[in-house]
């Protein structure tokens, strides 16, 4: 069971949280100018890295706030926690 540091509440057990998937997705728009391909990329295509994954989590049973996490999908180690809308920190092995 992971231990995740909510930026507001501090370190808490994984079961209080929910993972919302890849972070920093940009919603394409306006809707009538988005190609099927672009839309599919946004909806379904994912980096799915083996290594550092940037993802968003919500403190579902806590303060209900969303935030970003840089986490290794290999070791599950959490390398950074940062706010919604913030840029990811420079980490080794991070894409983009």
């Amino acid at each position, binding site marked *: 069971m992971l231990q995740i540091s909510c930026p*507001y*509440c*501090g370190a*808490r*057990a994984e*079961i*209080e949280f929910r993972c919302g998937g890849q972070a920093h997705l940009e919603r394409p728009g306006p809707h009538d100018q988005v190609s099927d391909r672009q839309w599919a990329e946004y909806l379904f295509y994912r980096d799915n890295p083996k290594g550092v994954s940037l993802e968003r989590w919500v403190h579902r*049973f*806590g*303060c*209900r*706030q969303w935030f970003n996490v840089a986490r290794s999908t290999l070791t599950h180690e959490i390398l950074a926690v940062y706010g919604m809308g913030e840029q990811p920190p420079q980490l080794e092995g991070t894409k983009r």
Partner: protein
Amino acid sequence: MSKLERMSPLGRGISATAYSSEFVSLRQQTFFGVAKVIVRKSDLLGSPELEALLGVRAPQMANTVVQGSGVEIAWAAPNQWLLLGDEAEVARICAAAQTAFRDETALVLQLTHAYAVFQIEKTGARDVLASLCPLDLHPRAFAPGRCAQSLLGDAGVFIQQCNEAPSFRLMVDQTYAGYAWRLLSEACKSLSSS
């Protein structure tokens, strides 16, 4: 036609609403006032109106509670607070806050009816909570004046430590009152038997 009557969340099915042993005591606290204040802009929280209403500045430190005039104010999330205390007092403050924030993006909601409130105390209280809740409630990690939202079994819970005894206040959605009561009272019993 008669006036409508109030019923507490543990109104049915649960024969006892209090448990007490040498190590731990547990009871339901009925008719306890709860309200939530949500503001959009953080500068509202420092507004003189709010402070005047509450008699104190709403806590800015996450997971802390301050004593206001008549009510306690607990941090719930950034720009969100719970007002806890006497029902009438909570209602009065709510009404005033609603007026004060009429032109703001804010919600001031009485949620008294949405919660079931329990009080658990004595030396075994932490162990009982630890059997259901992943929070670290050790005195070094948690203390009077602290609060947190977490899980009690599979239900969300608001926990506040009221004093050193220790005494904790627990609030769950009232539709989980029976569930929480069952879990808590069973855990209390297990504590005494092992």
